[in-house]
């Protein structure tokens, strides 16, 4: 089906279902209940799940398949964001040209950086990408201010030309839209105690994610994908086999750069603002975390990893001491305050600590990430049954 094997097609269907039903699935707790704060089914967060999912899926094409660890992919996301905002400013508030241009600009940018960085491998490659990304970040926040808006960032204005849109008579800055449907528009459906929000922007992201995910599956299962796995496994042998590994890795680098640009384009399509901090190396580190946590080299892993990290960032970070106290209220007083004190550093503003620990545990005990872990558990059970 669609050129996919049965299993891959089922996986695509699963992702389609999860993504389409996410506004319902991610709101399991009734409105107004004490657990409602753990609901993730609001548009802003769900959009981020998908956008970072795209970013991580693309990153995995490079890191997961070829083993080349880039610490500079945030630069492509940032470059894509800037390109996207400029399209919204100059051409039209319709998001399609912005998203396309983001992808193209990031592709060109990654071709340039990839061409140079891939002259080296291993740690040297990682440091080259890191150096390029830090340079881009430094320049974007200072000298390139006319293009990037410097430290305040780049955003749409009322008096932008928008040459395709005609005169703006409303007196408001127009919101990014798709043929008249504004990204921020939502339909709210109350259902008993629950409230479901179906947002235009979210479904635009969902559509793009599905396509990006589908393309990634095709790449993984293609001869090209197998050559990339061979690069990771034994780069030198590949060249004695009649293959020039460099164009393969460069192609993987550019494809993953375009995915990053696509994610950047979607970001500005949802919220037309681009800042230089998106290019910082810690942002590149974040996508590495997502990929590893979910399962490097697996098709689905990065999407899961992106979801988990973004959920942590937005939900875990909201837990405060009052909430902790109410959870541990059933305990005797001394124990209660002890538990609050123990848990406190890991939640709220300390969510990064939990993230770091989770990440370390994943690398130490689950080199295949969550998907790899689930897979091996599944296999163990399956094998036992076969015996």
């Amino acid at each position, binding site marked *: 089906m669609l050129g996919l*094997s049965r299993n891959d097609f089922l996986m695509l269907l699963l992702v389609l279902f999860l993504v389409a039903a996410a506004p319902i699935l991610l709101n399991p707790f009734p409105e107004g209940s004490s657990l409602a704060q753990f609901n993730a089914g609001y548009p802003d967060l769900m959009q981020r799940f998908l956008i970072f999912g795209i970013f991580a899926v693309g990153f995995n094409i490079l890191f997961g398949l070829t083993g080349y660890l880039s610490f500079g992919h945030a630069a492509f996301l940032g470059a894509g964001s800037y390109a996207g905002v400029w399209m919204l400013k100059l051409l039209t508030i319709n998001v399609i040209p912005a998203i396309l241009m983001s992808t193209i600009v990031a592709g060109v940018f990654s071709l340039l950086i990839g061409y140079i960085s891939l002259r080296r491998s291993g740690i040297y490659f990682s440091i080259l990408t890191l150096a390029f990304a830090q340079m881009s970040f430094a320049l974007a926040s200072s000298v390139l201010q006319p293009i990037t808006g410097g430290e305040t960032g780049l955003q749409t204005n009322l008096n932008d030309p928008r040459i395709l849109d005609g005169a703006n008579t409303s007196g408001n800055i127009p919101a990014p839209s798709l043929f008249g449907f504004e990204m921020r528009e939502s339909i709210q459906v109350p259902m008993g105690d629950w409230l479901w929000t179906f947002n235009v922007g979210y479904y635009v992201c969902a559509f793009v994610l599905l396509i990006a995910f589908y393309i990634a599956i095709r790449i993984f*299962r293609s*001869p090209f994908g*197998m050559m990339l*796995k*061979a690069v990771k496994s*034994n780069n030198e*042998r590949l060249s*004695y086999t*009649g293959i020039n590994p460099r164009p393969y890795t460069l192609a993987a680098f550019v494809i993953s750069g375009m995915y990053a640009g696509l994610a950047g384009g979607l970001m500005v399509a949802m919220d037309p603002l681009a800042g230089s901090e998106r290019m910082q190396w810690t942002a590149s580190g974040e996508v590495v975390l997502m990929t590893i946590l979910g399962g490097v080299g697996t098709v689905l892993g990065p999407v899961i990893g992106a979801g988990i990290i973004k959920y942590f960032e937005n939900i875990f970070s909201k837990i405060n001491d009052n909430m902790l106290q109410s959870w541990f209220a059933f305990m005797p007083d001394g124990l209660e305050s002890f538990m609050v004190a123990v848990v406190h550093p890991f939640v709220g503003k300390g969510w990064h600590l939990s993230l770091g620990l989770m990440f370390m545990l994943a690398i130490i005990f689950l080199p295949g990430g969550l998907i790899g872990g689930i897979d091996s558990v599944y296999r163990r059970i399956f094998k036992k049954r076969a015996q």
Partner: protein
Amino acid sequence: MAVALEVKGVNKRFGGLQALNDVNLLVDEGRIHAIIGPNGAGKSTLLNTFIGRLKPDSGSVMFDGKNLIGKLPHQINQIGVSRVFQTPEIFADLSVIENVMIPALAHRDGIFELNAWKPMRKETNIRQKAIDVLEDLGMEDKLEMTASSMSRGDKRRLEMAMGLVQEPKLLLLDEPTAGMSRADTNNTIEVLKHIGDSRGLTMIIIEHDMHVVFSLAQKISVLAQGTVIVEDAPENIKGNPKVQEAYLGGAH
């Protein structure tokens, strides 16, 4: 008889060691040519200069009218020279069948092909080719095994399958049967013989096992201290005093 490979005046020095000293070699087309010699004679070094792993200080290696010296490994392979490595250089994380399909794809698609859309499982021709070669080598029951989990002997056979599937014009074999059982060795000899006869493939084989050498070779060059001391038909090599001296002299 046509010449397949012509090696002229190849020199290679590592610091104070003259590893290859004015090596000259003529390999006839469609023949199996063995290079023997004591340890450290420079056999593997010589092969390394053929495949672009090492650049000699001087000399030329002509194949098919092209000088292989200065060409990159993947270019040399695409000209039609494949090498079976002594220590298995396989794609350890991939399955056996994938290990063989990769060189098969390289043979069909060249040094680079952005073949990112067609699913691997629709490459039925390539897959069949790989299976055929693996069957010849008696590995048809191990197709989906991960390469790294195989025995050493199986890795050697996999190496050979990776070379053979490319249908090279010249196959370089570096101790292809080392680490194999006697039965596997004999099977390998049969396979190589069969391929040599049926495809008219030129082969250069480095080997310590004289049983293998004399079963296969139609011509033998003896290398000692970086230089070819004798080049002759197998029947004339056995009693040659120079050869005996080289081996015994090397053993002192």
